[in-house]
């Protein structure tokens, strides 16, 4: 155990031992992980100050193409100068401002009534979705409802509802979105008690409410939106370090933003959308995501998606707008875990199961019984975070063979072959080691990488055909 606490060496030694034969190992050993010039998934900065790499026809010049006379230029009064605030009245008078506002409101309503393309209720609801931020059960409730606009609520088929919610949520930053309908069984996945100690109570009330002691969920809010938010694989492979763990925090922050926007969007359609009052509140995220077909459970006892592997955080919302629900999937992931065990071997605190088959027996109160899984020892895991890593760990996420980018076609072939022919899983696991996947990368090197926004490739979840 003690030698495993040498963090960097622990993972590298493990991966070296697990590699292929001498030939592959020899090739692998001479490869230095520092010399690659890469493409859209993150090249190294070519400029010493990390300036953006522009096309050749963009020239740097000494003077901007706008001429400036600094003698004329004065510091600006933003409050009264622009036409956004009170400044407009200064130019045209308050009466004219009021007339314009009334015209805008009248046009907005008339266009919604006339269903003018791009000005419909759903378009306006989307436009108002960004008015507030933050975790909350009931939502920010700042966006206007259809009633407040003088409009009937949005109506459509469940398929149309699913489609526009998916479109909106993808636009807000969700990677994948799925839906389920709660029944007597799946209701058990909604917490009895939330993280802040409030009871979660289903009720026949028409509208959700919240008191100091409880959150009341109307029985009509029986549709679950489950969604994932990508983490940066390139950043997570630096774990366990604070640098790597912040991609988890960033995903949670983005999930919070997506939740608030979705709550306001659904409110703008005329329906209720209940969210997580704090991180991981309201319900068991991986379970709902599995039922909604976003991925499968795994040896991590966490969700693994076919698209991003474990490099996601998972969130959920409850709505009373009827949607077309999804089915669970089988992408060969759980089956792959039976033979792979790479995460369990790499785990420095030996918290993950080495059993070949999942079991009904839980490891402790941190596991919810009633499903057959690879239950983890969350206590030893957390102790390792605090005592040794000094930060969230995530090694098990980083080494997982499903945690891949999608530039090399081989990953898709491996996933497809593994899904169809499980007998190949052990071979693929061995090759994964031999090719050097999952080896811890330098945190210092990360600061020199020209990564895309959030360190993720948002095109990975978009498939043709």
């Amino acid at each position, binding site marked *: 155990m003690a030698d495993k606490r040498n963090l960097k060496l622990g993972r590298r030694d493990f991966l070296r031992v697990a590699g292929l034969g001498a030939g592959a190992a020899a*090739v692998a050993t001479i*490869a230095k992980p*520092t010399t690659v010039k*890469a493409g*859209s*998934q993150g090249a190294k900065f070519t400029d010493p100050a990390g300036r953006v790499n522009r096309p050749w026809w963009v020239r740097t010049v000494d003077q901007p193409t706008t001429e400036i006379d600094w003698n004329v230029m004065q510091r600006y009064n933003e409050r009264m100068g622009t036409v956004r605030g009170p400044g407009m009245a200064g130019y045209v008078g308050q009466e004219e401002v009021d007339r314009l506002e009334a015209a805008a409101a009248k046009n907005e309503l008339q266009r919604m009534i006339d269903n003018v393309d791009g000005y419909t209720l759903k378009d306006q609801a989307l436009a108002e979705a960004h008015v507030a931020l933050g975790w909350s059960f009931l939502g920010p409730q700042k966006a206007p409802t259809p009633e407040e606009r003088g409009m009937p609520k949005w109506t459509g088929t469940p398929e149309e509802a699913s489609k526009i919610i998916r479109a909106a949520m993808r636009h807000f930053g969700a990677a994948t979105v799925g839906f389920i309908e709660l029944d007597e069984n799946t209701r058990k996945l909604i917490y009895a008690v939330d993280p802040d100690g409030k009871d979660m109570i289903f009720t026949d009330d028409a509208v959700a409410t919240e008191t100091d002691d409880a959150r009341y969920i109307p029985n009509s809010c029986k549709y679950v939106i489950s969604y994932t938010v990508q983490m940066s694989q390139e950043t997570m492979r630096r774990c366990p370090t604070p640098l790597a763990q912040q991609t988890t925090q960033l995903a949670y922050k983005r999930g919070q933003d997506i939740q608030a926007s979705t709550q306001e969007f659904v409110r703008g359609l005329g329906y209720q959308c209940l969210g997580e009052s704090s991180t991981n509140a309201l319900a068991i995220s991986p379970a709902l995501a599995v039922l909604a077909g976003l991925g499968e459970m795994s040896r991590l006892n966490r969700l693994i998606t076919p698209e991003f592997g474990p490099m996601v955080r998972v969130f959920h919302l409850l709505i009373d707008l009827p949607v077309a629900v999804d089915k669970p999937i089988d992408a060969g992931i759980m089956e792959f875990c039976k033979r792979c065990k790479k995460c369990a071997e790499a785990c420095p605190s030996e918290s993950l199961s080495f059993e070949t088959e999942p079991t009904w027996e839980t490891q402790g109160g941190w596991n919810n019984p009633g499903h057959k899984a690879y239950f983890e020892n969350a206590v030893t895991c957390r102790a390792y975070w605090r005592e040794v890593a000094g930060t969230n760990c995530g090694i098990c996420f980083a080494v997982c063979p499903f945690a891949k980018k999608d*530039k*090399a076609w081989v990953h898709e072939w491996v996933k497809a072959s593994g899904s169809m022919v499980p007998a190949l899983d052990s071979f693929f696991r061995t090759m994964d080691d031999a090719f050097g*996947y999952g080896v811890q990368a330098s945190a210092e090197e990360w600061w020199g990488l020209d990564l895309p926004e959030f360190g993720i490739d948002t095109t990975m979840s978009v498939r043709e055909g």
Partner: protein
Amino acid sequence: MSDKMTIAIRKRSWIEWSGWAIWFVGILLIVQNAIGSAQELEPRAALILWVSLAVWLLAGLVVWFVRKDR
């Protein structure tokens, strides 16, 4: 000296043509994955694939050399 020349055209079997087609597709696939691995910042995978490409090309060269006079 005869003013006639004989040109011998050797017809390859479809199996041989298929073999060369597979060899060529193999090149494309290895190159794609090598470049893709570099883009993914996976230098070890990229290196192994470039080495594999060299071996694949060499194997084709050897086969061509051995069979060229047949």
